[in-house]
């Protein structure tokens, strides 16, 4: 019998086609979102103030500049979590911890708070400013003031360190146990901050100012873009700063998108993917499991740190009570809803849920109540709605709104039966 060595003509897509397709899809998404950002920015910056009237109030209600900014901040966190959950397949129910740590790094390094960190007031005269921008109010130049753009990587690295710290002992755990430990971590860190007013010997060290929180936070400098006419050189809380802050957050989100896409294509990304698919097989290919998983925690936490600092500038403060468990769950819901592992899917998922969260549901409720004459507080049913969305997703679209192409293809194409394969063999031999 002749061996079946004559290759039949290549069927299906070639490898190059698939890579080209992915690149094209990335370009399309990036361009689309860029256009949306530019349009929104122009709208908030020039158009709405000029038009005023109903249009302006419509946007103020349904998609205000702070709602849009908050949505973009959620995208940053969701993308960070996506690296851990979507890329490497490690369940993390405590991602809010990195949001908190990032926030407090901003509190320590870009606010007057550092001068109050010793309860005996021994640091009261501490003044350190490195390109920092404290608000121009008497007395607020105390403490440590580093430049916002400098604090971002610092917070990222500190979070990455904590990511490894929490990651290391959990790596031998599987699914349920891993979920429990990360959940605990997500509870413990905010509790430490919440109760961190009197630490150390004699309760002298104030880590976090407890429930009172830390405020105000320094402004965001725009140098060198401040030379462009019309661009404020500091972005604080003035109304005219907000469109630019929105732009800054979009820039950070874009950076995380870029990071996610680049890592995915590289060696580390492939190693994560392999671990997600089959850990044992990955290890047989020579993927160092420990190192690779820790890298996922570190990179994911890095994004969380950056988002934490940005969020601190958004609310002009850090408040321990904000970092609750629900945030970790909402973030996870964003990743699942959007399509685990797909950067664009997760972005859309985060935007949708964050919008519902901030203005969407409330406005829908108001409109509904006005029209029907009822008086239902829709905000109260927010988690019911999230739960419903997730259940429906699991029932009808398990792979998420915009799934990874690789998931889509496997779900769409049933495995070829053994008989078919044997048939193909026999045909091959006859030929």
């Amino acid at each position, binding site marked *: 019998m002749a061996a079946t060595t004559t290759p039949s003509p*290549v069927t299906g897509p070639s490898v190059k086609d698939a890579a080209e397709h992915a690149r094209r899809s990335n370009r399309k998404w990036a361009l689309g979102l860029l256009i949306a950002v530019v349009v929104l920015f122009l709208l908030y910056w020039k158009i709405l103030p000029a038009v005023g009237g109903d249009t302006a109030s419509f946007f103020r209600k349904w998609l205000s500049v702070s709602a849009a900014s908050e949505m973009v901040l959620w995208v940053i966190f969701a993308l960070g979590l996506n690296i851990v959950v979507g890329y490497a397949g490690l369940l993390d129910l405590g991602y809010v911890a990195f949001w908190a740590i990032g926030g407090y790094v901003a509190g320590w390094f870009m606010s007057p708070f550092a001068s109050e960190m010793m309860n005996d007031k021994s640091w009261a005269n501490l003044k350190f400013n490195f390109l920092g921008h404290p608000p121009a109010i008497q007395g607020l130049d105390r403490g440590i003031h580093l430049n916002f753009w400098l604090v971002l990587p610092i917070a990222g690295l500190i979070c990455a360190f904590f990511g490894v710290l929490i990651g290391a002992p959990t790596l031998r755990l599987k699914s349920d146990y891993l979920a429990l430990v990360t959940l605990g971590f997500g509870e413990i860190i905010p509790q430490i901050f919440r109760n961190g007013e009197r630490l150390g010997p004699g309760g002298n060290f104030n880590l976090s100012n407890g429930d009172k929180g830390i405020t105000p936070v320094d402004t965001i400098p725009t140098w060198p873009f401040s030379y462009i006419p019309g661009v404020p050189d500091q972005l604080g809380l003035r109304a005219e700063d907000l469109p630019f802050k929105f732009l800054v957050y979009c820039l950070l989100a874009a950076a995380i998108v870029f990071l996610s896409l680049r890592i995915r294509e590289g060696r580390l990304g492939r*190693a994560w993917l392999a671990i997600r698919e089959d850990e044992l097989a990955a290890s*047989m290919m020579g*993927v160092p499991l420990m190192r690779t998983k820790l890298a996922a925690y570190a990179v994911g936490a890095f994004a969380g740190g950056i988002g934490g600092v940005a969020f601190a500038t958004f609310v002009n403060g850090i408040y321990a009570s904000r970092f609750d468990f629900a945030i970790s769950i909402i973030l996870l819901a964003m990743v699942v809803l959007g399509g685990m592992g797909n950067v664009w899917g997760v972005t859309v998922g985060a935007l949708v849920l964050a919008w519902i969260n901030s203005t969407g549901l409330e406005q829908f409720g108001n409109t509904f109540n006005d029209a029907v004459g009822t008086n239902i507080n829709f905000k109260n049913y927010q988690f019911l709605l999230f739960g419903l969305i997730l259940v429906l997703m699991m029932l009808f679209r398990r792979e998420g709104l915009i799934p990874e192409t690789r998931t889509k293809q496997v779900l769409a194409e049933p*495995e070829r039966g053994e008989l078919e*394969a044997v048939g193909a*063999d026999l045909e091959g031999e006859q030929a």
Partner: protein
Amino acid sequence: MSAQSSTSQTGEARGTGEILLKIDDLQVYYGAIAAVKGISLEVRQGEIVTLIGSNGAGKSTTLRTISGLIKPRQGSVTFAGKNVTTMSGHGIVEAGICHSPEGRRIFPRMTVDENLDMGAFLRNDKDGIAEDREHVLELFPRLRERIAQKAGTLSGGEQQMLAVARAMMGRPKLLLLDEPSMGLAPVLVDLIFDTIQTIRDQGTTILLVEQNALAALGIADYAYVLESGALKLQGSARRLAEDDEVTRAYLGG
């Protein structure tokens, strides 16, 4: 050494190739249960050595211990003169042992091409990888036809080919094959075993674990028979294939 003495030796003297892999008094436990109870064996350069035995005899455990996925309680694994017993999984792949696992375990949501790429994960020589990719696609032309397809959509036989091809992408000195015939139609079993022989003829030493003892003895040079974690018989594959006891127990004769 106690295990060795209880093993009856069948057949003529072995080939005189250099010893590539040597396992000495290997004992592996899952918790309190002994899965492998003091096995010693050798694989020589250029051989196909097969490890046969029924379900639960400790065949797969032995392979997994060799590739560093499980640590033995006692005994040693020596590869190319180096003690690799305590090495990490990726260290062992780097040393030149690649494992095609039981149940194929291909990466379902990666394409065939990406799966092959993963097999070369620890290598940096681009040209060498491209060469080996071409080589395994010649060994398994069916994979070339499905190169951009997600591996999860392949048939069982194709997945098995991919699992072997993927392991070959590490350019191993020693290839561990765990049950390559499992769940395959007879035509495909022949095809896979033919290819295993070709791989050996091209210079890769192979340690083959099989339940399909007949097929395994048909291509192997030397065979070890395992029974509940201990070596029962060893000898040249041809002799074992004719051995009454083996025939009765494993070949259904």
